[in-house]
Structures are given as C-alpha cells and as structure tokens.
C-alpha cells in the first residue's frame, strides 16, 4: 500500500501538517524570554523563573477552565464570580474546621461551589437557549453577590490554616500550587484530546447543529463543560486563598481578563473548535512573562495594563484564520 509516491506525499504532508499558526504563541514566548533576558539582568534567574511559575499557577488553572468553554464556541465570564463564592466557601469551612482534614474539606467545598455555579450557568444556557455571554455575565454577579453576602462584606483570614501548604511547601524549588496547576492542565489536556467529552467539545465548537444531528448530546456536553470550567475556577480560588491567606469576594478581581486573554493569546479561537488547554498554558506564560518583565523594567503599572490590552488585540488579529473568509465583523 505504501509506495514511494505515498511516502513523498506523507513527508510533504508532515511539513504542511506542522501547525505553524498554532506554534506562533510558542515563538512569541521564546522571543519574549530572550528579549527580556537581554534587557533585564535579573530576568533569567532561577528565582525569577520560580516567581513567574508561582504567579502563573492561578491564571493557568483559570485559563484551562475558560478554554474548555471557548473550545465549544461559548464564552464564560463568570470566572471572578465563581472564584469569589469558592474562596469564601473555602475560608468559611477553614474557620469552622481547622486542621488538615478541614483544609481538605475546604478545598473540596470550594471545588463543589465552583462546579455548581458553572453547572448553573450551563443549565441556564442550555435550558433557556440564552447566549452564554449573557448568562455568565449574570452568574458572575450572582457569584459576587453570594460571596459578599456569605461573609458580610468582609475578609476571612485563614493565615494559619493547613491549606496554605499549597503555597508555602516547595517541591523542586516550586510551590505545590504550581504542580497542582500543571497537573490540572495535564488532566484537562487528556480530557480534551482523548475522551468522548473532549471530542464532543470540538464537535460542538465546529458545528453544533451537525454534532446534534450525529447524536452528540449537545446539551449535556455544554453543561459538563461549564461545570468543569467552574471546577477550575474553584481550584483557582483554593490556590489563591492558599497564596493570600484569606478569603473574600474580591479574590478574583481582574482574573477574567487574564484568563480570556491567555486563551486568546495562546491561539484558541473564540469561534470555537480550534485551540486547546496547552495553547492556553502558553498564553498564560506569555501574559505572565510580559507582566513580570515590565515590572523588572520599571514600566508604570497603568501602562502595563494598556500593554496587556494591546497584546490581546494583536493576538486576535494575528491568530484569526482569514482564509476563505471574505468579511470579518
């Protein structure tokens, strides 16, 4: 069957099958690291890399969640709301039940809270056939409101809790939270590429009607994706609580932008169907390395925000595949 002509074709295809467009974020990340290494003396140090890894942990977990939703062509704006609820729940459980067992319970309670909020988003989105954009805008504020109400507007300090081992104990020079985040991305990657649910996410992103016609249970897939995304936000909240030693409703502030821009910068299409969690991990690193570099170079904070805004626009402009697409709106 395999003739020489076939082999020639195969090698040509190997060349064209290299996803150049998908690799662009990796090239950007490498270029950024080299440039910063040259520009800032203290960039390329083990300590700084550990710092980058540490600050990338929470965004990576959040971006993983957002990516699952974006892959199927939806958008999840409820990141900050879900984190708020999960963080407050975790803190309250920690206060009620100190000790190692309490910490485990707090973590699971936070995961459950995040997943529940996500499942609610998904169920409303599917049940009412409402755009995910609007639904999750709503659940974002529901989450925030719930969180403020639960703690009466204040902050719950959990400075001495066992949960903090996630941030304080280091393994191979990196906090446990970094390993947890890496593990999450890995699990999500396996889920995305090797399970029926993952396949269904891509199918829904590529063509929801067609997927439904083929017998893919679209509604269940969507609810599952939003719930899994919520689970990630819950985990992000646990890591954030461990890092900060406190839980409050503001713990997620500013996280949505970072998560969505990481996904986009990484090359996950907002139209759905293209990209994935590994892309988003690269996107997170681009965003975190850039902000780390700007701090090292002494760029004023507000300018840093503007640069991040610019980054997301450039990423969209570069990553969109305009072939065969006459008009864009």
């Amino acid at each position, binding site marked *: 069957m395999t003739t020489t002509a076939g082999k020639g074709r195969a090698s040509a*295809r190997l060349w064209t099958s290299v996803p150049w467009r998908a690799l662009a974020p990796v090239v950007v990340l490498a270029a950024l690291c080299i440039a910063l290494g040259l520009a800032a003396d203290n960039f390329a140090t083990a300590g700084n890399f550990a710092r980058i890894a540490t600050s990338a942990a929470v965004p990576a977990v959040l971006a993983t969640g957002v990516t699952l939703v974006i892959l199927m062509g939806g958008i999840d704006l409820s990141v900050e709301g879900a984190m708020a609820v999960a963080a407050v729940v975790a803190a309250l459980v920690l206060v009620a039940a100190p000790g190692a067992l309490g910490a485990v319970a707090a973590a699971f309670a936070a995961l459950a809270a995040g997943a529940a909020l996500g499942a609610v988003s998904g169920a409303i989105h599917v049940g009412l056939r409402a755009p995910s954009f609007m639904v999750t805008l709503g659940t974002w504020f529901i989450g925030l409101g719930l969180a403020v109400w639960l703690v009466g507007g204040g902050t719950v300090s959990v400075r001495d809790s066992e949960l903090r081992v996630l941030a304080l104990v280091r393994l191979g020079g990196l906090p446990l939270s970094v390993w947890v985040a890496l593990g999450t991305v890995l699990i999500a990657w*396996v889920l995305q590429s*090797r*399970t*029926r649910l993952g*396949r269904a996410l*891509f*199918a829904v*992103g*590529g*063509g929801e009607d*067609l*997927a*439904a*016609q*083929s*017998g*893919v249970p679209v509604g269940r897939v969507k609810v599952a994706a939003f719930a899994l995304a919520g689970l990630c936000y819950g985990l992000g909240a646990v890591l954030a609580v461990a890092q900060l030693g406190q839980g409050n409703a503001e713990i997620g502030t500013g996280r949505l932008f970072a998560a969505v821009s990481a996904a986009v910068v990484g090359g996950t299409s907002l139209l759905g*169907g*293209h990209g994935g969690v590994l892309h988003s991990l690269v996107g997170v690193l681009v965003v975190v390395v850039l902000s780390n570099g700007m701090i090292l170079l002494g760029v004023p904070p507000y300018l840093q925000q503007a640069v991040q805004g610019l980054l997301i626009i450039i990423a969209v402009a570069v990553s969109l595949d305009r072939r065969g697409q*006459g008009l864009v709106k």
Partner: protein
Amino acid sequence: MLTAENLRKSYAGVEALRGVSFEVRPGEVVGLVGENGAGKSTLMRLLAGTQRPSGGRILRDGQPVSLASPRDANAMGIAMVFQEQSLILNLSVAENLFLGQDGEFVRHGLIDRRALRRAALHQLAKVGLDIDPDRRAGELSFAQRQMVELAKALALEDRVDRDLVILLDEPTSVLEQAEIDLLFSRVRDLQSRASFVFVSHRLDEVLAISDRVYVMRDGAVVAEAPASAVTPADLHQMMVGRGVRTEYYLESRQEPPRSDVALAVRGLGQQGAFRDVSFDLHRGEVLGLAGVIGSGREALIRVLFGFERPDAGGMEVEGQAYAPRSPADAVARGLGFVPSERRTEGLVMTLSLGANITLARIREAMTPWGLSRSKEQALARDWISRLGIRTPSADTPCRNLSGGNQQKVVLAKWRTAGSRVLILDHPTRGVDVGAKEEVFRLIRDLCDEGVAILLVADTLEETIGLSHRVLVMRDGAISAELPAPAGGKPEQVRIVEHMV
C-alpha cells in the same frame, strides 16, 4: 423495510405533510422528487429522526417505531446523508465518521485512537475513498466530504443488526459530473447491503439511479412509478401540476446577440489556474462556460469580477481598459456577479428584500434628506412585480424567501446597480423546477435588454440550452468554442469530448 403510513407534519399550523404514505423495499433505490416546499425535506427529517411527525406511523420491518432523535433512527438502521457541509470541519475524518458513536473506542475512559483510525480506514474502503482518516474534514474537496458522509452513514451496518436505509438528501448538488458518476457507482455497489432514498432536483439523475420514484406536491405524494416507465418531462409535469412548456430553455426567445462587445478578454492568465484565455462577450449574448472542476473556470470568473488579479493579459469593458482591483471596481464598471453561494455571498439574509436590492447602489434610494424607505420600497415593489418575486412584502428578510425568489432578488440588485455584464455562477443551484423556468425567463429578458451574460451552469444541458456560444475549458485553457444558436444547439457529447 421502511414504511411511512399517512404521515402528517405541521409547523405553526401550516401543513407541510398531509398524509404521506411511502415505502422502501430491500435493496431498492427510491427517488423522491418535488418542487421546493413540496415536503421532501420534511419527510426526510421525519424518517431521519430530526423531527417528529404530528400524525401517522413509521414502520420498520413491519413494526411501528418512534424516531425521537437521529440516534433512534440510527438504531433502526436509518441514516441520513445531508446536503452539504454536514461534516464538522475542524475534526478529522475519523472523528467525523464516528461522531456521537465513539463509545466503542473508549478504553479506560480514553479514546483508543489507533482503533478509531483502523475502523475509519475500514469504513472509507467501503466507499472507495483513499484518504488519510487523520486529515481534517476541512481539507477535503466537496466530493470527498460527500463520500465521507456516505461512509459515515454506511458505518451503521456494523452496529445495527439489520439492513440499512440511507437517506440521500440532494447529495449531488455540490458535485460535478465525474464525482456524481462515482457516487452513483458506489450506491449501485452498495445496493446489496442497503436501500437508498434519493432526493434531488435533477430529474434525469433521479431516473438514472432510482428503481422507483415518488413525486410529491404540496405535502402529498401525487404519483409513484417505476423509474423505467417515466421520463424527466413526465416527472416535471407531475411535480408542477401543469403542462410542461414544450421548450424548457425558451429557445425561441433566443435572439442573435448585438454586435457591440461588452467584455473583451485577451490572453488572460493566472499562474496555476488558467492561461491564454481570450474571448469577446457581446451585448445581449449568453456565453456558456463549460468545464470540470479544476478546469480553471472558477478562477477565471473570480479574476473577471476582481476577487483576484490576473498575471497575464488584459480585459476591456465597453472598449475601455478594465483591470479591477476589487469587486467594487467591477461593480463600478457595470459588472454584476450572481454567486453560487447565495446564502453567504449573494444576499444579506437578515436584511429585507428592499435593502438587498439597493445594496449595490444605495443612491437609488437616497434623497437629499437621507435614505428614503418609501423610495426603497417603491423600487422593491417594482422589482417584485417585474420579476414575479413571491414574498409577503418588500420588508421580508431574504432568509424567509425560497431559493428561486432569492435568486431573483440577486438579479434585481444587479439590475438596480445598472450592471451591463452579469456573471452567473450556477444560477439555478438548489432552485426548484418552477423557479428555474423563471430564472431562464429572466436570463432571456436580460438579453433582450442588452445585458451580456457569462454563464456557468449546473448542467451541460442548461449551458447548451441557454447559451449563444459555449466556451469549453480544460486544464486551464480554452479547448473549444462551439456556437449554440437557436435551432442549432450542439450535442452534449461534442462538448464533453473537449472537457476531458
């Protein structure tokens, strides 16, 4: 095998099916024809489980069945091959083949990709398609996608312990002749394992492939006959319920073209697509462009309308040099383009009929005080009556119009824009028989008005019937030019011999 008894379906009070009885026997190819809106698609949807009937029964091997979803239909050995674009383009061929059915490849919660690939190769072999199952569906040609669809439907036989019924909903509408032949030969080979229901607008095709034909009109079956006992003209008459005009392509209205040249093309070429193309298109002339996919005719019309630039040669419109850098340039010089993809290129589906008509020349509806709705509406109403567009009002969004009426709106748009050279790319694709005749009439009207028309038609018969002259393209060059005057139309074979 599969029987429908007195099936009914209504949408919001409108009866789409009013008691249809229909039968598919083992190993049979059943043709299903009818004008748009006759109920063919509705019947298909009920059989495929994407919609549920309002009344009547569906029986499989004599047993009443309830088909609440495509999955239910699949479990009963019924699968549908959808018209076009029903593969998910970002998934691989293998993933598409087993979409929604990939449970059998799961080992310990993970999909066994090697097993999936093996199974995909097995299914592709059945339809004689030699492609890598790991390729993304988006990289395939339309014909290949259609074959993958067929393979997907046939994959059912490994899961279901009975003979299959495969519903083919206009499988040929995006295919060229050679591809259609391939599809048909596969269908014939597979007749031992499956029965087919074949829906198409092309009556000659239906008769060529089917054993038996059902004709539908206004939500009911009006005739059933062995395919060998009827002619396309018979079918046509049964479909429209009125006498077929003796001359389908209005040949008697074909007047000799005028002497002045509207569009002159000299030595035009584009690297890798076509080369050394020269012709004159006269006012009042229909110039048919024949050729298989890859012959260069698609690229040629894209260059003519300014979507792409040529590498060699030049063009003149009405004696003036013409080198369009964009479709806007082409429109400004009096060219109009009626694309085959009406839904994405021809009309803004969400806009009203009136707004679409003035799209290419908004100033027709302008007053010194801005856009005048009454002017736009008057213009729209004028076209509605002139072209016989069937629409509730001038405000109706174009997506609510039938294919034929949409096509009329596209033509009205270009006439409003003052186009003197029209490029018609498959103007009757997906248009029912009655509306086709109206499109033909429009083409004759346009010629009478002195419009020059370059025609890329769905079938050779149509190309010959409508054109004054036929240019045949092969491998990027013009291989023949045949006159086709009224009363002296060339045979199809004479054109085919220059095509391949």
